[in-house]
């Protein structure tokens, strides 16, 4: 029985270049819908409070904590999750620089950094720090992650 017709609705979301439909509660966060409805579990629920960055996805190319956006709010925007980021050099850089330990922060971090590189290919250290401080990594101590970012930026420049 649906008690309140307005509590939820059928929505279409543009996720990873595909249009996906789901019935959601209006109060469902995008993180919940991605994970529980679409099986896109790369986004992780580290805090559900906008504090840790482990749920980061890209909304129109901008990093957003998916625990801090409603699924209904995401309608009409282009969403990219780690599953949709198939040929990104940053993933190779994370592997190559050992920037991964338990891996729980990794998808969120990679999406954030991917956006950084797309937006500011000339990012300096201050800019890198400003972006990287959005995510908590509890395992690595961040050095390898910074190296992965820097090496990717350098490699991009050489390739240009």
């Amino acid at each position, binding site marked *: 029985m649906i008690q309140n017709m307005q509590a939820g609705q059928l929505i279409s979301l543009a996720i990873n270049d595909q249009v996906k439909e789901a019935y959601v509660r209006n109060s469902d966060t995008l993180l919940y819908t991605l994970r529980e409805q679409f099986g896109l579990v790369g986004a992780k629920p580290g805090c559900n409070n906008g504090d840790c960055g482990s749920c980061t996805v890209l909304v129109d190319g901008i990093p957003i904590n998916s625990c801090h956006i409603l699924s209904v709010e995401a309608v009409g925007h282009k969403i990219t999750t780690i599953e949709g980021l198939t040929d990104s050099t940053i993933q190779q850089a*994370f592997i190559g620089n050992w920037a991964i330990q338990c891996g*729980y922060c990794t998808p969120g971090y990679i999406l954030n950094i991917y956006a950084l590189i797309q937006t500011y290919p000339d990012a300096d250290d201050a800019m890198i720090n400003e972006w990287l*401080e959005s995510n*908590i990594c509890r395992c690595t101590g961040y050095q390898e992650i910074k190296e992965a970012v820097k090496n990717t930026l350098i490699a991009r420049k050489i390739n240009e």
Partner: protein
Amino acid sequence: MKTESYTVIGKSVPRVDMPDKAFGRTKYTNDVTIPGVLHAKLHTSTRAHAVIKSINLAKAWEVPGVRAILTGDAFPFPVGPMLADRPPLAVNKVRYCGEPIAVVVADNIHQAKKAATLIDVEYEDLPVVNSPAEAMKSNAQLIHENLSNYKVQVKGVYPTPNTNIANLTKIRKGNMQTGWEASDITIESRVSFTPADHAALETRCARVEILSNGRVMVYSSTQGPFYVRKLLSEFFHIDAGMISVQTPLVGGAFGGKGTVQLEFIAYLASRAVGGKMVKIENSREEDLIMSPVHIGLDASVKLGATKDGKLKAAEIKFLFDSGAYSDTGAGISKAAASDCTGPYAIENVHCDSYCVYTNHPYATSFRGFGHPELTFAVEKAMDKLAARLQVDPFELRLLNAIGPGDTTPTQVNLNASNIGDVSSCLTKIRNLIGWNPNKNVQTTRDGKIRTKGISCFWKTSSTPPNATAGAVLTFNTDGSINLNCAAVELGQGTKTVLGQILAEKLKMDTKDIHVTLEVNTQYDPHQWKTVASSTTMIAGRAVLAAAEDAIKQLKNVGSTVLKSSPEDLDIAKGRIFLKDSPEYGVKITDVAVGYKYPNGNTVGGLVVGNGSYNVRHLTPLDPETGFGKPGPQWGVGAQAVEVEYNPKDYTYKIVKAATVLDAGKVINPQAAIGQMRGGMYLGLSWATRESFTFDDKGIVLNPQLRTYDILRASETPEYLVDFVETPLVDGPYGARGMGEYGVIGMAGALANSLSAACAADLNQLPLTPELIWKLVEGKGDVQ
């Protein structure tokens, strides 16, 4: 010693778990969605100490989808790993803010949560014990009235009835009077800090289902799948063979997932709904305070030394703040007692190490198991002594460095193998950080003060005397090998390192070794837990034994095929061949599944390599003197921190953090460096900003990552890492453990560095600017 020529050991073989993690393909416990699974949500206490007058469930039951609501009477018996003192759901009273009182099981998570919120508990407040010092007072409010009735689960835990003492470990070595008489100088030092948290990024999560044949299926993010099975079996009287625990990769643990909590609740919940699968996942708020935390400490250290700086006596008192329940706190207080002096040779030692109940969230193991905590106390005292003696803190440590021929506080005789080389680690750290006693305090042009501080640490693994691991090798038709063992991959690289050990032994390529990443207690050989930096040693030795077993079988069949004796054969690169004419041989692929002669006859069967390893010769500590052997070997190291301190506003920046560890043998350098950096990071984050803030009613004021501060990428130092390699004779390829070590000396080195910068005794954690301001300005007693 360095002439060994390994092909795989000592190489930075890429960790096998990285690619899937980078592409978001790794599935953690909570990443599986199962249609029909029921969801459990807790109602937790808003009081730190109170009698539960009543629990009203009426409104909660009205929420649609609710299938069961359980309160303490569902299982009113205490559980716990060392001392059974904690009911899974509170019974009659609550002892900490955040304690689970009831669990709601519902079709959907939002229904469960809504109902849990609607549970109405009426409390009658009791006086709150807000620090271990308060708990120790003779007239202190008792937190456990029935302490004497609790069952001791592990030998060597000594609660004191009618007190708040869950355990006391005593160390009595030498003669204190002699020690003090031989001392020209004595110093006293006191440090303290409140509990903090592990804050692994993956919050704890468990699913339990009870099948119709009675089999209990558990899926859990744990460091100890077999441990979960053991405790479930013991407390709920289920045959161990009827319990199957599965653990995929774990999203960080740091000791916090080495104990059992949610699994008990999920089991009870599933039982209440006819065995249907029930899932319980912690919110971050629950994970921070409802689930066990990082232990707090109040420690006093008194050291005596000759005027040349030779340590003669140490009197140490630890009051560990284990919170409302003892969990592994009892073990932590014991481990800290065993290594209470730090890595220094002292003949006369007196230590009383207490595990104390308070009304704080309860504590469990944290990376380093009592050692980051004790080391902060000891290393602060060492710097105080150096200052009093007016000697270089570095030289003081070098002079007293423990080594072969000395004995530990529990009177274990040390030899060239069972302890690493403290002096070498110290000498190396001196160069790494650029230690110069005359230049360690420098003022920059803009008025900031740059200082360095050092610390030294040791740790033995404090495993149970029968800690064990096993390994099973099976062969694939392509000649590659599956390695099965129950070590849990937490990101520390365990599975890769075990693969390397196997590859080296079989002289094959690591790419031909498939290490199973998930653990399933039904298929994998038993392993105690993945904790205590013990896995490389215990599981590594099991893998070596399994490899030897496989080699023996391969050579046996090979000898028939090659018409030679097994002793004349060698194995490498997927072949069995004659030692003296390597070109004459047979492929492992042709032998491992039975060798087939051209005529169709077959010799040999499937080769399955089995191996296991037990820690050996450990003995419980004597209750009066502490005499005994707590662990197989002592890992040692030295650390340093350089800070830039601003005396104007008491802020500071950590410029560098350095570690030199005696690793015995570094099996995978890049993984080892990562472990050290990560350890330093965790230690620095804790020492600079992590702790729970309690109000005077014992309520946690910062149970969120918004306010429970964690070190971020923009504020991390440059990390420097180096190793010493003093082989452990019975370690795999000489390796000692390393997982925990990077964290141990950070708080001490940081506090020493900052104390030098601000010329005050910074004896508390975390070292926030406000704390420094208070201590420097002498603003009252902040203890």
